């Protein structure tokens, strides 16, 4: 665990797992964040207040014998970064999910404000947002190893499905457009499908393959323009 501005990291050998450590660290960082605000209101320079509070946070954690000080520079499977100056907590971890005795590993980044509010879960390799999660869900037992790991698996499967469009196109559809739409921080796969020529374009929720609506004629006009542009592009290719 790194406290920004601190010359060493705090290392924990036994229980760095986010299901065990994330919430206690968030609570400890929140206390330190409150101390920054209190010291600043008492006239302490803010940068200095953040440094003093960071020192206090490190001292508090060191009272737990599981923590020790270590040199920076080595990469660890799970790492936490507390920045008291900007008031943010950042974590990267490796999660895994087992389905049909097959294990999938996922690297995730989680970042959010120490003072409160939702945390964003990202895929650090692709830079995509997997989900946005409220703190009360993060506090649920085994959230990281079960709920989040399953969500990562679903995101990976979607990614793979989108990567093999030709195999998954509906043979009965006259036209089909697949897209990913960000809804409240979650990436939702959406399919626009035209069953017959000059027919309506259905909007399908790609997660459950459910019909959710129909494009209005105005919007169909835009889609026709995009389609015509691509048809011409391919014709001249």
């Amino acid at each position, binding site marked *: 665990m790194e406290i920004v501005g601190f*010359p*060493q990291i705090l290392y924990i050998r036994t229980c760095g797992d986010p299901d065990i450590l994330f919430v206690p660290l968030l609570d400890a960082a929140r206390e330190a964040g409150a101390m920054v605000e209190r*010291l600043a209101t008492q006239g302490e320079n803010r940068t200095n207040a953040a440094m*003093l509070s960071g*020192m*206090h946070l490190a*001292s508090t954690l060191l009272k737990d014998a599981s923590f020790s000080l270590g*040199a920076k520079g080595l990469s660890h499977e799970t790492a936490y970064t507390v920045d008291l100056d900007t008031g943010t907590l950042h974590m990267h971890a490796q999660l895994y999910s087992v389905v049909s005795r097959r294990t999938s590993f996922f690297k995730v980044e989680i970042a959010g404000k120490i003072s409160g509010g939702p945390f964003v879960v990202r895929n650090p390799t692709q830079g995509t947002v997997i989900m946005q999660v409220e703190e009360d869900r993060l506090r649920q037992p085994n959230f990281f190893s079960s709920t989040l790991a399953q969500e990562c698996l679903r995101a990976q499967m979607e990614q793979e499905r989108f990567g093999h469009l030709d195999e998954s196109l509906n043979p009965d559809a006259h036209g089909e457009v697949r897209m990913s739409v960000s809804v409240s921080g979650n990436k939702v796969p959406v399919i626009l499908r035209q069953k017959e020529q000059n027919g309506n374009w259905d909007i399908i929720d790609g997660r459950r393959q459910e019909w959710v609506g129909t494009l209005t004629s105005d919007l169909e006009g835009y889609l026709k323009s995009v389609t015509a542009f691509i048809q011409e592009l391919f014709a001249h290719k």
Partner: protein
Amino acid sequence: MSGQKTDDKLTDQSMASVHLKERREIRYDVSIEIEVSGIDQNGQAFHERTATTDVSEWGCGFLMSTELKVDDMVAVRMASTGQESGSSHPQCLYQVLRVKRDGTGWLVGAWKMGGCDVWGSELPKAFKSEGLGQEARREEPVADEEQHRKDSEQ
């Protein structure tokens, strides 16, 4: 101090996290005015001006009126003389390794956490004065664990 370093010395990163048994540095009984900052046992910030009792490149001892505990972190900088601004001296973080009651105060032994140079030209001055037999008295290197044992025996 960079001029004093030799290739067989441990790197800054290693020195910052070296095991207490391995820490054997020459300490000098030199009094340097310092300002120690931290958070006290009541969660209040303190900035206490004091002086060192001994100094080495990576460690120092000083007397405090504020009670500190082992593993507390403190920021140490050389005190400004009044003719210069306080911010001109770098502030370095130290981990408290030893605390011993001394009269009405506390004698604290601390170990630097990074390669920051807190003493500037003061430590080379101590080296020089050692040669002249003035001010600073050179002590044989003692590992922190041994020092801790000696303190407990007293």
